């Protein structure tokens, strides 16, 4: 039996409000907040990227697991904002965490699903016995073009999950993946910002895949929505996860703990994994937890976890998600935001 032996998350301290972005572009802040249910989002500092977020989250995961990092046999990072097009993020992360060099490392990309993709592969290697421990990380400093709807949501953060077979914090009861060729959102080589098919990203992309994967895992496990204490669905904006959750039969109470998007934004590959981390920060032993990610292109991964007694003992070893979301924050003007996100072009 394999499951989570350590987890951690990281959200940068900088924030920008929807109101500030709306004001910049002459949009109605109330309409944005009402339509997308977004109040503010995290923004990476100039010295923060997918690698630093992965290191912070990975360190918290190792702290909670309390294992010697050299026993980690594989590490995967899912992101659509790896700092390098060629050269892995994972190599920097293992060095910083004291993992390896006897370790398998790879960077994954599957739009917003890359984080659960890394978790899925890490889990599989542990289950097979190929490695003793494996870490899967989802982290992003997401890109949203200026004056695109994405600019209100694209944020920074991530979560790391260490899988093993002993001293579990949460047991993996089942997984289910659902994938089709649905090009709803993409970024080509050399482009700064992703493009998307507008409303095509909704019904035929997000809702179809999240619904199919969730129904699939419920069928596979024989579980019903009412069996779960918590559920988290990928959060591209505030509205979609609540709408799909309620359509699938989950209550607002089951969804609210993992629904971080209103003040965190969409951390892309880190989105639903960070929601899961917020749930693990408060779940009790025996609680069943559902997570369904979504990545454009498109696909969804679903996992069912059961919280174990060790979770309650160990989670205090690292900061909670809420402490980073609600703790000290620095609010940026649009000008500062444009500088931090390197939207201002200067000569070399």
């Amino acid at each position, binding site marked *: 039996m394999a499951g989570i032996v350590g987890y951690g998350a990281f959200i940068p301290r900088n924030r920008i409000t929807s109101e500030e972005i709306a004001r910049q572009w002459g949009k*109605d802040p109330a*309409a944005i907040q*009402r*339509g997308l249910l977004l109040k503010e989002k995290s923004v990476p500092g100039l010295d923060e990227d997918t690698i630093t977020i992965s290191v912070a989250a990975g360190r918290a995961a190792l702290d909670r697991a309390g294992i010697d990092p050299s026993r980690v046999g594989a590490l995967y990072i899912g992101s659509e904002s790896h700092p390098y097009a060629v050269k892995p993020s994972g190599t920097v992360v293992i060095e910083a965490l004291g993992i390896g060099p006897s370790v398998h490392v790879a960077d994954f990309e599957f739009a917003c699903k890359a984080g659960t993709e890394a978790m899925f592969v890490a889990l599989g290697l542990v289950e097979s016995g190929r490695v003793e421990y494996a870490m899967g990380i989802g982290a992003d400093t997401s890109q949203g073009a200026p004056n695109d709807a994405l600019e209100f949501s694209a944020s920074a953060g991530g979560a790391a999950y260490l899988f093993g077979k002993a001293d579990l914090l949460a047991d993996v009861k089942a997984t289910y993946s659902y994938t089709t060729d649905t090009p709803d959102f993409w970024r080509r080589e050399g482009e700064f910002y992703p493009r998307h*098919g507008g*409303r*095509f990203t909704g*019904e*035929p992309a997000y809702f179809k895949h999240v619904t199919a994967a969730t129904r699939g895992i419920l069928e596979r496990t024989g579980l019903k929505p009412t069996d779960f204490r918590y559920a988290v669905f990928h959060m591209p904006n505030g509205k979609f996860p609540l709408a799909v959750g309620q359509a699938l039969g989950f209550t607002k109470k089951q969804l609210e703990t993992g629904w971080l998007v209103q003040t965190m934004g969409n951390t892309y590959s880190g989105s639903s994994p960070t929601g899961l981390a917020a749930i693990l920060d408060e779940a009790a032993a025996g609680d069943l937890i559902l997570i369904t990610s979504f990545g454009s292109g498109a696909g969804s991964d679903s996992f069912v976890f059961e919280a174990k007694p060790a979770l309650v003992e160990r989670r205090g070893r690292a900061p909670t998600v809420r402490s980073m979301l609600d703790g000290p924050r620095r609010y940026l003007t649009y000008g500062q935001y444009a500088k931090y996100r390197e939207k201002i072009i200067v000569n070399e």
Partner: protein
Amino acid sequence: MREVAIVAAGMTKFGELWGSSLRDLFVEAASEALTMARADHVDAIVVGNMSAGQFVGQEHLGPLLADHLGMAGTPAMRVESACASGGAALRVGFLEVASGACDLVLAAGVEKMNDGGDVTAVLATAADQENEVYHGITFPGLYAMIARAHMTAHGTTAEDLAAVAVKNHRHGALNPKAQFRREVTLEEVMASSMVAEPLRLLHCSPVSDGAAAVLLCPLDQAKRYTDRPVKIRASAAATAPMALADRKNLAFLDAVQLSAQRAYKLAGVGPADLHVVEVHDCFTIAEICCIEALGLVEPGKGRDAARSGLTALGGKVPVNTSGGLKSKGHPVGATGIAQVIEIFEQLRGAAGDRQVKNARIGLAQNMGGSGASSVIHILERV
């Protein structure tokens, strides 16, 4: 000229139909009409379509659609008059039958708008490129200017405009084919995002995919296909200057009035004789202007019609019982045919929860651009 009847109709659901291409939509609607009439051939196909060339990169729709309907060989052509393309296609089909050239004609309309095209830019090609569009105007902007002119001339308010959306959504909620089967409140309309002042999002019809088709034949052959034919008592069309700046009165739609006068004369009826009406409410202000130009209310008095219930289901002359373009959806090339199908169903007593009791005479008004073209059909139960 021979008398012409509509004997069958078919229509897709309107909406964001991601799983259906232009040809799928056409074949679905056309097949439904052919099946209803148990017809295995037609003498001609006329299809209304505004801009498949720009929306999905496909022109030459006549042979394409005939082929995919399994009718390669049949004469088939596409008719275009911007958002009035559907009405124009019906008019061409009507003339083919009335003239004696054809005995059974499929008149259809189709538009696939949700396929990646820049919809606002494509629709703007229905305005005057040199005198309007090059200066940056869009269709919401043009209708916003019409609304402003109406407000200045007649004291119309944004709430008056919103009342049209409330009424049409109430109707559309009863229509299984409608894109938005839900009611909206006046407060929701007034709180929706501003698109082009004074027009908010819920003052505007949506971007839609869909197709609609009817079968036409001489009235004296109609019983071969149905025991409930509906006669086309008039088909009339008119134009007005393309650019708003060239019109005498921005707040009045001359082409609609002219096409109505012609239709009333041909049919030998007047606005007071109509039991049910579909008008081209691409924006809520358009419905107010259209009911004035049709003579359903006096010029300048359109602002109260929706709120007072005059034009609501149960009112004196129900307008847009289908939900109109606002709630039913507006796949531009299909709209004119879909409007006629609503009247066809109303006159046959087949409109379900939207049925207007004892409806015998109905009118469908379809408009192109900012009102530069208008096509009207008056139908009667026989």
